Structure formats: structure tokens, C-alpha cells
């Protein structure tokens, strides 16, 4: 039973970044912009989030407040960075995949440069402990308490909160309706007076917001609030893309997909706790590969009938008929 608790407790902090970033990707792609830059956006957000933590860690602020503020910082950073993508893809009508890749390449170099110039380091190392051993009252609930309210981070709850918000914006608001229209048939949207460019900027910016935040949450929940230019976010941005596709560009399916991957990952590292798997004593490396292999397997089965937003990847040009 402890093993089960352990798996759940460790799955969530990993799932949340995936969830948020994939949701970001969803907003971007449903507005018509393929967002390969998620990896870069995450890293950028994580970087500024951690930088913030680094500068305030001395102060007497409560760690959880620091985390919340850091979250805001990272989200803003993410938005700012995502504007580079919108500028290239919406305004300049550049190839979306290429621009995204360029932005991905930019961030690690930037972090390395900054970190080396300021602390002769490959990244930022902080030491604030955001870990929550037990949420007061809730933590004492029988099973639920152990599963969800012990040994965790508030990022988990924030993550679910944003899932709800995202879903509402997406399905229940005028904005959401218009955004989705732009990703499917921008000319139709235009003909009813919707400004496609603005909507796409909005979509990409939301991916910046969620992506930056997700990046910071990755740093917090997985990297102990450290971040460096070499390991970066270990391909989580791309995993998030896969999660988004697996989730069919829909909020709640994305949640399931994210949980699936995160669980697989946790499982892979917890082999030692699970006797029959441990007995197999398979080379560690295979477990390191597992999430990537799983991604491929999943995509191999889902991609056949997966339905991406129709207008995704095509720069919108009013005068094109």
C-alpha cells in the first residue's frame, strides 16, 4: 500500500508540468499555431522562476509565497518569450516549426551564458524547500489524505485549478469559441469580423503563460528548484507535445495522457520497490528510454485517426483565397 501512495505522490508533481504545458500547446494549436517552442518556453519560464527564487531565498518570506510569486514571474517570462514566436509566425508569417526550433535553441545558450557570466555556473542552484510534508487537516483524511495531501507540492493543486479554468475558457466563453474557429477556418472567423491575428497572438501567449509556469513547476517538483542549461527540462516540452496529441487537443483527455506518462516515468524509477519488476533486473537504461518509447507506441496507435486543428501550421493571409 505504501508503494501505491508513493507512486501516486510522486506521479502528480511530474504530471502537472506536463499537463500545464500540454494545455498551453492546446491553446496555441487550436488557434492555428504549431508550438514546437514549448521546450524553450518551459526552460525560459523555469529559468526566470528559479532566478526569482534565487534572489529572494534569503528573505524571510514563507516558501509557499515565494513559490506563488515565482510562478507569476515564470508565467510572465513565458508570455514574453512566446511573443517572439507570435511575432515570427503570426506577424511575419514564418514557418512555425522552424521558428519554434530556433527559439528552443536560443534558451539553453542564453542560460549558460548568463549563469556563467554571473555565477560561473551552468545554471541556477537555489535552496528553498517547497516540499509539503502534510497539508494540515486534509492530510489526516484516511486514504485520500495519504494519496493527495501528503509529501507533495502546492503546484499539484494549482495545476488542477488551471485545468478547470482552461477548460471553462475553452468551451464556455466567447473567447474560446472564437479561438477554436481561428484554428479550424480562419477565413470563416475573419468573415464574421474576428481578428485572426489577435486571436492567434492570444493563443500563443496563453501557451507562453502555461508553458512558463509549467517549466517552473518542473523545476520545483522535479529539479528541486534548480535549473541548468545542459539538462534543461529533459525533453519535457516535447513530451508535452506528445501528450497534447495523445490528448487529442482536448483538456480532459490531455489530463489523462499527462497522468499516463507521469505514472510510467515514476514507475520506471521505482522499479526497485516493485519486487517482480525488480527481479527482472533489466538494464537501467531501458527505463530511461521508457517514456520516449511509450510516447512512440502511443502515437503509433493514436495518430492514424488523430485530428489536428485544420488550419494549424498555415500562416493566415487575408488576401489568400
Amino acid at each position: 500500500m505504501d508503494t501505491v501512495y508513493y507512486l501516486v505522490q510522486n506521479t502528480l508533481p511530474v504530471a502537472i508540468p506536463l499537463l500545464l504545458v500540454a494545455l498551453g500547446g492546446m491553446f496555441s494549436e487550436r488557434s492555428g499555431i504549431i508550438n514546437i517552442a514549448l521546450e524553450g518556453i518551459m526552460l525560459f519560464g523555469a529559468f526566470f522562476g528559479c532566478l526569482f527564487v534565487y534572489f529572494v531565498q534569503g528573505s524571510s518570506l514563507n516558501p509557499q509565497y515565494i513559490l506563488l510569486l515565482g510562478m507569476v514571474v515564470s508565467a510572465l517570462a513565458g508570455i514574453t518569450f512566446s511573443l517572439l514566436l507570435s511575432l515570427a509566425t503570426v506577424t511575419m508569417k514564418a514557418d512555425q516549426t522552424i521558428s519554434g526550433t530556433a527559439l528552443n535553441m536560443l534558451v539553453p545558450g542564453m542560460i549558460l551564458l548568463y549563469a556563467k557570466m554571473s555565477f560561473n555556473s551552468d545554471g541556477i542552484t537555489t535552496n528553498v524547500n517547497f516540499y509539503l510534508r502534510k497539508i494540515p487537516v486534509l492530510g489526516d483524511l484516511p486514504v485520500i489524505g495519504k494519496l493527495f495531501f501528503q509529501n507533495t507540492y502546492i503546484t499539484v493543486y494549482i495545476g488542477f485549478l488551471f485545468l478547470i479554468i482552461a477548460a471553462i475558457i475553452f468551451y464556455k466563453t466567447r473567447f474560446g469559441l472564437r479561438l477554436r474557429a481561428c484554428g479550424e477556418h480562419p477565413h470563416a472567423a475573419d468573415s464574421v469580423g474576428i481578428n485572426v491575428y489577435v486571436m492567434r497572438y492570444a493563443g500563443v501567449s496563453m501557451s507562453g503563460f502555461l508553458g512558463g509556469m509549467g517549466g517552473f513547476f518542473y523545476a520545483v517538483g522535479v529539479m528541486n528548484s534548480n535549473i541548468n542549461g545542459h539538462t534543461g527540462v529533459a525533453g519535457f516540452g516535447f513530451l508535452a507535445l506528445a501528450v497534447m496529441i495523445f490528448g487529442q487537443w482536448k483538456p480532459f483527455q490531455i489530463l489523462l495522457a499527462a497522468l499516463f506518462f507521469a505514472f510510467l516515468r515514476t514507475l520506471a524509477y521505482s522499479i526497485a520497490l516493485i519486487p517482480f519488476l525488480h527481479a527482472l533486473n533489466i538494464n537501467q537504461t531501458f527505463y530511461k528510454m521508457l517514456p520516449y518509447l511509450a510516447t512512440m507506441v502511443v502515437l503509433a496507435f493514436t495518430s492514424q485517426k488523430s485530428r489536428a486543428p485544420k488550419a494549424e501550421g498555415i500562416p493566415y493571409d487575408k488576401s489568400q483565397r
Partner: protein
Amino acid sequence: MNDYIIEMLNITKEFPGIVANDTITLRLKKGEIHALLGENGAGKSTLMSVLFGLYQPEKGEIRKNGKTVKINNPNDANALGIGMVHQHFKLVEIFTVLENIMLGVEPHTLGFLQKKKAKEKIVELSRQYGLEVNPDAIIEKISVGMQQRVEILKMLYRDNEILIFDEPTAVLTPQEIDELMEIMRRFAQEGKSILFITHKLNEIMAVADRCTVLRKGQYVGTVEIKDTTKEELSRMMVGRDVSFRVQKEASKPERVVLSVRNVSVPSKTSKKNAVNNVSLDVRAGEIVCLAGIDGNGQTEFVSALTGLERHTSGTITLCDQDISKASIRTRSKSGMSHIPEDRHKYGLVLDYTLEDNLVIQRYWQPQFQRFGFIRRKAVRAYAEGIIKQYDVRSGQGPITIARSMSGGNQQKAIIGREIDKDHELLVAVQPTRGLDVGAIEYIHKQLVARRNAGKAVLLVSLELDEVMNVSDRILVMYEGEIVGELDPKTTTVQELGLYMSGAKRNQKEGSHAE
């Protein structure tokens, strides 16, 4: 004093390398149905897009009820009560009818959608004008006719009083066309003013009060329908006389070239077959026309026939050899030529030069290739031949980039390519789609010439005039089945329409198989 609700004065609109509208003036009276006639690329859609605020004109002004207005975007147009049904529908396929209609003017509180409100209004409207729709149906699941209703409801929902219809009838059956005409008349009686674009003269004669004619981006004139004729209109449109009848002597069918037996193709959207157990023969020296309303399986059938898709069951025999499972290349080798439905999607590599496009079916033949290396000279020479023979107009001849050519000329190039390649069967799918009468006339001549040369021609068309004029034998397709075989000389458009709408069917085709 003036009774014009809309005046477009000296409108000029340029596109890179072309003046789409050149000082055009159009006056619309309140409560009239005003037709707008012109060849392809004459500037009709552009002019309407200007009125609808999609394009900004370089010169000219627009007045409503006498006072000048500036229309910067569809919202402005909407505010002025102007609505438009576009030539190519502007509907979000994965949205419901409801969502599409309210998109852009959604009722909401604090940004949260109020679908109920919208729904009530729509139900009310469709009742009032007899435009039955299911607000919760997904667009991609409903018929083209339905989709057009949605477009019309979009205008009504916005309480527009000036309604623009851009080539609305192209996609409809005769019956549906009649209904549409009815609806337009009703609108007019209610005092709504209508601008109606079409290539089809008899429709204009049927409903319009007045007609403005454009040619090559220029204003030709405006006439009262009651004192004009089809002939005069077409002369105004093209600048010369055109013959509406394709003159051809009776066909003398010979041996069977194409023989299709019990072919079925599963549908992508629904569970039932898109093409269901179809059998037909096409003989040398005859033009068989596959008629039917868009979306009744013609496309799927052609895909199966030409190999673009693998059909599930049945056999296809071309010149006595079974090609049911053959690759596209093999089919082409064994004598099939194919003029595709969508020239931009299939027919051409728009970024290739004209010459490269002209050999796209044959680049691998020894004539054009040695040891896998393309023989430029040979290609160039060949291309020049075709261009000359089929009078393909373009900027720099063989090295013109296909994208920069007009649709009409692009089509000519494709036709030249497919006809020149030696073949026994010519499959022509909507070869005159969106082309003007001049081009249409030319292409029809070519088809007849093929047939006289003893080739088998299978023509797939939605245009009734084309079906009646060109073909020697008509097969009507309805819901994936061939519901009737008709002789163009003995049937009427109305009867044909009945078959197309499934109201009537005969089993002749089944027996014909033997």
C-alpha cells in the same frame, strides 16, 4: 431623392499584378434582386468582398441611403445591415450549426456564452422563412444544401437587409435552386435588397430585376432584365457571341473500354458505403456522364477508379485487363487519363514550372529521362508543343511558375497534358468548374473531339447544362448507387433533377451490366 440603398461608385481594387476592379459602379435599389454577371476573374467576388469589408478599395466610395460610409471590416458591413453568402462557404466544419451562426455576434454575459438565447432566435427564424435546420447538427455531417441554409441564416440572424449571394446555385439541385429562388423572392418582398452572383443566365432571367455585367475587372453596363435576352447578356459578358449548344453528330459506340462491376467503397464519415455496388460500362466513341448532386459518392467512385483510393470490393477492367488492384502508375500506363476535380490540390504542383507540370505523368518515360537523369531539352520541346497546341497563356511560357497562371489556363494545361498522353479512357471530373463560358466552350469541344477520335470518355459533372449538352449517355448517382440511366436527347432537366434528388429511379443500369 434617390431610391438606392447601396451605391458603389468608381471602385478600384488591385491585386499584385492585376486590377480586379477598375472604377466599377454598382447601384442597388431597395427591395430589388440585382444580378452580378461576369466571367471568371471578372471581379465579382472581389467587388462584393469590398462591399462586405474584406478588402479595402484603392479608389472609389460606397454610399448607403445616399450618405458615404467607410467599411473597414465585416463588422462595419454587418452594422450597416450587409450580409454575404460566400462562393466558398465560410463555415467551421467541426462546429455545430448553432455555433457557426452565432460566431462573431455571440450573445454573452461577461464573456460567457448564452447559447440558449441564440438557439431560440434561430429556431424562430427558420420557422419564419421555412429554412429547416437542426441547430445542434455538426456542419461536416450535413448536406451542402443545408450548409447554404446555415449561411443564409447567418445573415438573417444578424438582421441584415442587404444580402449578397456569391454563386449560391453552383452546388444545388434544380429543385433546391427553385427553392432558393423562392426564398430570395420572399426576402425581396420583405424589402430586403439582394445582390446575386451567378454564371447561369437562365437563373438571372428567372429571378433578377436588374443585372450589372463586369468584364475583366471593368464595368460593362447595367440592364433591366425584362427588356433583355440571354444572348445579349452573354455578349455583354464575354464580348462576343457564344454558342450554348455543343454541336456534335450522334455517337457510334464500339467495344467496351472500361467495365466496372459491383464496386463498393466504404465511407469515411458514416458506417454505410459511400459507393455501393456500382456497375457500369464505357465504350469507345461515347461520352458517358456521371451526374448527381455533390456528395453522392462521385468523388469516392472516381478515387477508386483512378486509384487515388483502394476500393473494397468489385472489379475494374480497362481494355480487357483487370486493374482493380493496380497502382495509379499502372492504370495510367494501361491507358487511363484523368482530369482531376481539384486542379490546385491534385492537378498541378503550383510551385513547379509549367513544363515540369506538363510532364508530371510522363517524366519517367525514356523520352524524358536517361539513366534517371531528366532530359531538359526534350521536356522543354515537348512543353512548347503542348502550350502551342492547346493555347495555354502564361507569362514566360514553359518556365512560368504554375501558381501565377489563371485558373482557366491552369485547366487548359492539365487538359492538354492528359489528352496528349496516349490513352483509351479519359476521366474528366468537373473539367469546367468555375470557368467562364469561353473556356467552357473550348473544353467541351476537346471532349467531343476525343470521343470522335474513338476514345472512351467518362465525364463527372454537377452542371446540368453540361450534362445535357455534352454527354451521349447519362448515369445518375444517388447515395452511392446508380439510380438511373437516361438519354440526354429524350429526357428533360426536370426529370434528371428528380433522379438526382432520389425521387425517381429505374433499374435499367442493373440490366445494362450484361
